[in-house]
């Protein structure tokens, strides 16, 4: 972990530094022109959030059934990142919606479900912080339910009538757009992995410190 961290961080930083140029060079979308470019950051932030939800849900299941504190630390780190990337998606979405739809927010299936998913993980963090002893198991269940609800968000655009662009828009992008899009997606996923490593290490060291305090008191 430690060995790959620095090279990965350098690569990610380089990708984020190059991303604005790649996005600037990408061709304009025919109807939305410049506004469409927020898509290069909006979609990858949701991709990173789904990755975080998947990690959190799986780690929660492991903690719930196998009682592994390491899995719990991974889950709580991933939940924090899910809230972070979800917040990015929720900020960039309305910025686009204001220009494309004329309103900041619509109570549409996709938007509502995405907001709820964000709330699920905020409630995860709340129960972790204020739930008292035993809240790790409680939170693990919330993480698992969050993972279970997330496919409904993903498919909601395809089944329910919605004004949000469909998931199928990605493969139909023009050639010049695909390169920058996947560059940004990879950059966001790498950023997620790096932050997850850092945050998990912090949690591990906190746990070690707590153990040391306990040993000192005895």
């Amino acid at each position, binding site marked *: 972990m430690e060995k790959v961290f620095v090279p990965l961080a350098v690569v990610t930083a380089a990708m984020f530094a190059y991303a604005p140029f790649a996005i600037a060079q990408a061709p304009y979308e025919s109807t939305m022109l410049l506004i469409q470019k927020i898509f290069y950051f909006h979609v990858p932030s949701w991709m990173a959030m789904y990755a975080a939800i998947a990690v959190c849900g799986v780690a929660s299941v492991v903690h*719930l*059934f196998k009682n592994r504190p390491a899995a719990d630390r991974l889950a709580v780190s991933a939940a924090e990142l899910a809230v972070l990337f979800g917040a990015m998606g929720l900020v960039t979405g309305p910025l686009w919606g204001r220009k494309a739809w004329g309103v900041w927010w619509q109570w549409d299936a996709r938007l*509502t*479900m995405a907001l*709820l998913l964000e*709330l*699920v993980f*905020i*409630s995860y963090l*709340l*129960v972790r912080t*204020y*739930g*008292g*002893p*035993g*809240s790790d*198991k*409680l939170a693990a*269940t*919330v993480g*698992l*339910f*969050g993972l*279970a*609800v997330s496919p*409904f968000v993903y498919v909601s655009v395809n089944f329910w009538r919605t004004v949000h662009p469909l998931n199928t828009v990605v493969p139909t992008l023009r050639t010049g757009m695909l390169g920058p899009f996947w560059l940004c997606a990879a950059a966001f996923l790498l950023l997620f992995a790096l932050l997850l490593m850092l945050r998990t290490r912090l949690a591990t060291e906190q746990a070690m410190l707590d153990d040391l305090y306990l040993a000192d008191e005895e």
Partner: protein
Amino acid sequence: MMFLRTALLVLRKDFAIEIKSYEILSTTLFFAVGCVLVFAFALVKEGQAPPDSAAAILWISLLFSGTLALGRTFERERYGETIRALLLAPAPRPALYVGKLLGILCLLGLTEVLLVPLIALLFSAPMLLERLALLVPLLAFGTVGFAAVGTLFAAMLMRARTRDVMLPILLYPITIPVIIAGVRGTSALLASPPDEPTTIMWLAILLCFDVVFVTLSLWTFEPLMTE
């Protein structure tokens, strides 16, 4: 067989306690009526309720009184320390969960029996007669979805110090999709003429939520209640 018998025994135990005082039933019903009245005062202007409000009020009242009932049901187990005895019993844990869930479902079912005519009356919503055929499954599926998660969370929050505030905080984000599906399905049903295909689509979505939530709850109840 053993599983079903245990679940029914837990249900019978809860009934036997409840029937002595009717505490949870009467408070929940009164709270539900209070909820409807608050919404009626807030929304009805010059004798006219806003369109679609009846469906929303039905489900919101159900959500609020359900949260209250869930908290009360497990508070009773915690107060008497009876939950420990229940968990010590040589019975499959998921059966205890199912028993508790059935109790909550009965309670919410009774609440709905009161709420539906009341809202039909106060909001002149066409809920009765032939539309009941679809309204009953909508309410049933919605209640199962909500109560499945609610029973699990209320059970696991029993030991938490901040359980009163944590229950709605955890429960609402996860069950709001169920409530949305219920409200949408009900308002499609209450439209004139009733939009039955839309109602059936929401009914199918509710069924998906029910399957997912009940499966996950049965699966996680055991490891959650082991301590």
